[in-house]
């Protein structure tokens, strides 16, 4: 078993807002969603209220390919609260859709993380029906690296 794993149930659960509910509904179905502007087609991170580029309010949820590259990361050995199992990673992933997301890389050893490594999303329960997106290293063909 590798050292970087999903957190066990009991960690703080996200509290969806009116604007983010579709994102978490997607996670529950193993779909990573993001907002795209209907006017200028910009892809936007988080649950934006307005397009970051053209200020259109007409944003729609799309499904991400769920693939990206590792942009920055840290390995945490002393957690904010004891409910988190260490070590764990916190990572910034640059998705193929050109947006950055905060997540955690699992399925490898802490010292195996490298800049730009290819990652694929997978979902793990966080609380009740909610799931949290994690990322696992994959080879160029898209298969998980053991």
């Amino acid at each position: 078993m590798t050292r970087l794993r999903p957190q066990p149930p009991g960690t703080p659960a996200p509290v969806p807002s009116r604007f983010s509910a579709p994102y978490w509904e997607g996670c529950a179905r193993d779909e990573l969603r993001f907002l795209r502007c209907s006017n200028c087609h910009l892809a936007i991170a988080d649950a934006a209220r307005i397009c970051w580029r053209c200020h259109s309010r007409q944003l729609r949820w799309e499904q991400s390919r769920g693939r990206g590259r590792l942009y920055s990361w840290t390995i945490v050995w002393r957690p904010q609260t004891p409910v988190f199992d260490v070590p764990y990673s916190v990572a910034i992933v640059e998705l193929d859709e050109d947006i950055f997301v905060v997540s955690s890389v699992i399925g490898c050893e802490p010292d195996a993380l490298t800049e730009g490594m290819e990652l694929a999303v997978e979902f793990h329960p966080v609380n009740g029906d909610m799931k949290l997106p994690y990322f696992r290293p994959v080879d160029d063909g898209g298969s998980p690296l053991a």
Partner: protein
Amino acid sequence: MAHPFRDAAIAGVFNTLQARRLPDHDSLSIAIEGALGALDDAGLGVADVDGVIGERAGELAYELRLGPCRRSPNGLGIPAVLEAAALITTGQCQVVLVVGGSAGIYTDRASTAPWTRPTNEFVVGYGMFTAVEFALMAKRHMLTFGTTPGQLAAVAATIRNNGHQNPEAVYFGRGPFTPEDILASRPIAEPFHLLDCSTTSEGGCGLVLTTADRAADLKRPAAWILGGGSDAYGPAYQHGPIWDFTGRPGEDVPAGYVGRRAAAAAFVTAGLSPSDVGVCELYDPFSFEIIRQLEAFGFCPDGEGGAFVSDGTIGPGGRLPVTTDGGTMSFAHPGNSTQMLQRVIRSVQQVRGTCASAQVPGAEVALCSNGGSGALFNDVMLVGSVRP
């Protein structure tokens, strides 16, 4: 054109006792001590005050019977001092207190500062906290420029040794430290070890600003605001700290270099450049922040901050001593505005020549800062001994 801060003087500054815990105080009571101490330092009294700024400004107005007075619940550091100066130069106030205080807030054993714990739905599930946010920025700099853990450790050792020799520091006498000691301390969030991180403590502080005319007759030589600026990209501790995040079209400074525009504005107002600065009282939540700010503010080219901090330049007797009281790593780290106002206070002490330790001989211009890249904001101020 007259300098915009020419008619506002910093007439008094004060730090209360700083300690890991102040069991006989709450945040309001220690803020009161900060306010009264600053007035005493200036040679002014409560009856002279007609404005108060700080996260507890309203309560201070009531407790000290300051009314009728201007009150502003500005819980920032440098922007609060700049606001005080603006109240004076525009004639809205004659004597303004800027006050911070924090005590009794560490009610559990978790030593992450409570005001930095994120609840944003997109980060909370991943165990994000302050050290992680600053580590994600530091890691990106290390990947881009080859900055090393040893260079971060050189910063932490320098600042902790400043606190080690400061009798007013919470961690007075707790060193000295070598960079090897920093690297040998337990890992927190890579690349940060325990000794790369700020501490937590309690305390209060205050500053008094008044008109230049009034300051001329007071107890202390005045210190002067030569320039200031403030940059932010969003709320602190909510969103992912992404080095290359940008804002307005036409503004190409990435979030990684937040503070660059603020520093440039401060230098323009002052008519100065980085080479005119004798001491930098930089905000030091994590060791890497010093490297980042030295680059952002123009003290060295991008990517060269690691080398800049490794050759003695930022230490005692160096060309640009940094965070000379020990900063948040060793001097004190009380919550919210206090820790940030303390960077201004130390700058005032440096240009007045009244530091209890590590006085930079003949310091005429000090640069101080608040915030940092993991927090997506950075405030900058230049403080001088000569009226602009």
